[in-house]
């Protein structure tokens, strides 16, 4: 309980730098204001830019807030749950929700499995090879989402894209009888578009999982693996019986973070599906953005959607916070 402010009281009052300054510092010390003053800028910034907007959005979601209301031409009216009722009655909402959930399921699973496998591989590789592979992974990780999206759009482009060219030259028994030359991945429907999105997201996010798992693996004492091996455990058993239980907290946090990231994905899907060009390829984020920023804007409906998205994520976040607290993060 002894803090710096208290201890500094013992220090000689060094600078007679004017009465007012001295009086302020006495006040700060007497009421132990120092921590609150230090927190003030961050609380103000977070409050104004991150928290207040959430409150506003929540308020919009119960109003008929649109263009006339923002310009002041007409007053905003409270319409109760009207926006939510309209949302739940809209088949586009359910489609976008389904796309969001299925995409998150696929992307999270593939990312975690790939990342863990690469992490285990990095741990088993020799020094040179390990540095080589992790540098390659780092490059994918470092590529900005916009560059990566544009790049994958080009790789999967029907006019001159490399993937269609390669698939068209593969035997039918391997790649199916689709006419791959000129196959349009991004406008043919949600499944091909989100296949590309999944590959893109996995490519960008498995390195983080791999590096984190590797850092965790380094903390597992080698004797444990040795012991398991002597007892006749194979690589598979060794992972589930030794590595996984020890790294479980790390996996839990990685799982929750991945769910949150992939549930939220916007940049990649916005660019891959052609800048709000295909309504049947919207995920929740695109649907929400479309409601707010294509004419005529309906901030009320969009707010209701934002609230739904936030509440879904809050449930996941509660899991994340509990996992962090259990690991003693607040100490």
């Amino acid at each position, binding site marked *: 309980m002894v803090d710096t402010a208290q201890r500094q009281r013992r220090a000689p009052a060094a600078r007679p730098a004017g009465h007012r300054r001295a009086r302020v510092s006495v006040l700060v010390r007497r009421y*132990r204001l120092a921590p609150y003053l230090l927190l003030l800028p961050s609380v103000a910034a977070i409050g104004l830019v991150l928290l207040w907007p959430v409150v506003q959005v929540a308020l919009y979601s119960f109003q008929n807030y649109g263009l006339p209301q923002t310009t002041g031409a007409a007053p905003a009216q409270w319409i109760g749950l009207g926006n939510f009722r309209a949302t739940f009655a809209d088949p586009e909402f359910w489609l976008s929700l389904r796309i969001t959930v299925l995409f998150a399921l696929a992307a999270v699973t593939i990312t975690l499995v790939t990342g863990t496998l690469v992490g285990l591989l990095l741990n088993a590789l020799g020094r040179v090879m390990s540095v080589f592979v992790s540098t390659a992974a780092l490059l994918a990780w*470092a590529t900005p989402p*916009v560059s990566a999206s544009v790049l994958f759009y080009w790789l999967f482009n029907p006019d001159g894209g490399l993937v269609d060219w390669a698939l068209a030259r593969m035997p039918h028994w391997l790649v199916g009888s689709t006419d791959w030359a000129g196959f349009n991945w991004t406008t043919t429907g949600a499944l091909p578009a989100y296949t590309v999105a999944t590959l893109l997201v996995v490519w960008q996010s498995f390195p983080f999982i791999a590096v984190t798992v590797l850092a965790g693996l380094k903390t597992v004492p080698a004797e444990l693996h040795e012991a398991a091996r002597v007892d006749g455990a194979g690589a598979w058993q060794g992972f589930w019986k030794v590595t996984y239980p020890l790294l479980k907290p790390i996996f839990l946090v990685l799982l929750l973070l991945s769910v949150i990231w992939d549930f939220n994905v916007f940049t990649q899907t916005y660019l891959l599906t052609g800048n709000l060009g295909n309504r049947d390829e919207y995920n929740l984020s695109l649907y929400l953005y479309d409601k707010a920023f294509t004419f005529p804007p309906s901030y009320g409906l969009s*707010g209701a959607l934002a609230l739904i998205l936030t509440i879904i994520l809050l449930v996941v976040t509660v899991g994340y916070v509990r996992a962090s607290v259990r690991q003693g993060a607040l100490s």
Partner: protein
Amino acid sequence: MTSTGMTSTGMTSTGMTSTGTTGAPRALPRPRISPKTARKTRTTFLNASGLLVALLTLFPIFWMISTAFKPSQEIYSLTPHLLPAHPTLGNFSQVMSGQASGIGSFWLFFRNSLAVTLATVVLASLVSLLASVAVARFRFRFRASYLIMLLIVQMIPGQALIIALFLDFDRLGLLQNLGGLVLVYAAQALPVSIWMLRNFVATVPRELEEAAAIDGAGPMRIFWRIMFPLVAPGLVATSIFSFITAYNEFIVALTFLGQAHSDYTLPIYVTYFFGRGGAEWGPIMAASTLYTIPVVLFFLLVQRRMASGLVAGAVKG
């Protein structure tokens, strides 16, 4: 490839293989093999997988750079070549001259991005340093609530805020304005920055501060002379984080900047001519290569800190 070796040596050794075979691929029910051969097979298999992972991961980046150096008849040729047959700088010069996008030279948008990013880094570092000193050095009411608030705020999706931010910043006249972006980016970087930095502040020994206080140093002096140099590595880590957040940010810039072409940051610039239909892939790949290089170089320079910092932020809490 190693199957012949396996069978030839396999006959000579019996028993004592249980330790060596665990990592090897389980192919056929094969004769027992010596631990040495098994280890060799395992190493070969691991190295081959490593090589495969690295090549698959690098390929998209390689293809971006390769396309950027191809003349357009090669880009749209019916048989794509891995490397440009006639490498050209034409795409890059179109990007530099502004001819490719029609809204300005690459340098203009690079300057915008750099200004926004640096301002964000400075602002976020300052504010998060103050906050992390409070959290790491003082015990006070609401401390736990503040920390939990940071964790929760960090998860609020940007899309959920963007409507209200757009309307608020519109009223304040901060749309189509790089300063408005800096405010949002700095605030967005704060939760993770504070969360990371407080661990660094906590490791600064209190005895040093006390000694300085006894020697008559005021709080400001103690902060700048003792705390700051010792926390500098942590500041590097958080700066990296806010740098990347600001440099890559898309949705806020897209929404705020609208038609203000001369204020575009790099990601909006790259998507601007990507979105204009009849895409010219040469210049687009040249522009995204140029956009990607700085952040990749940055990553490579700071990779060790990067990994440990992010891991510390994400895992340890």
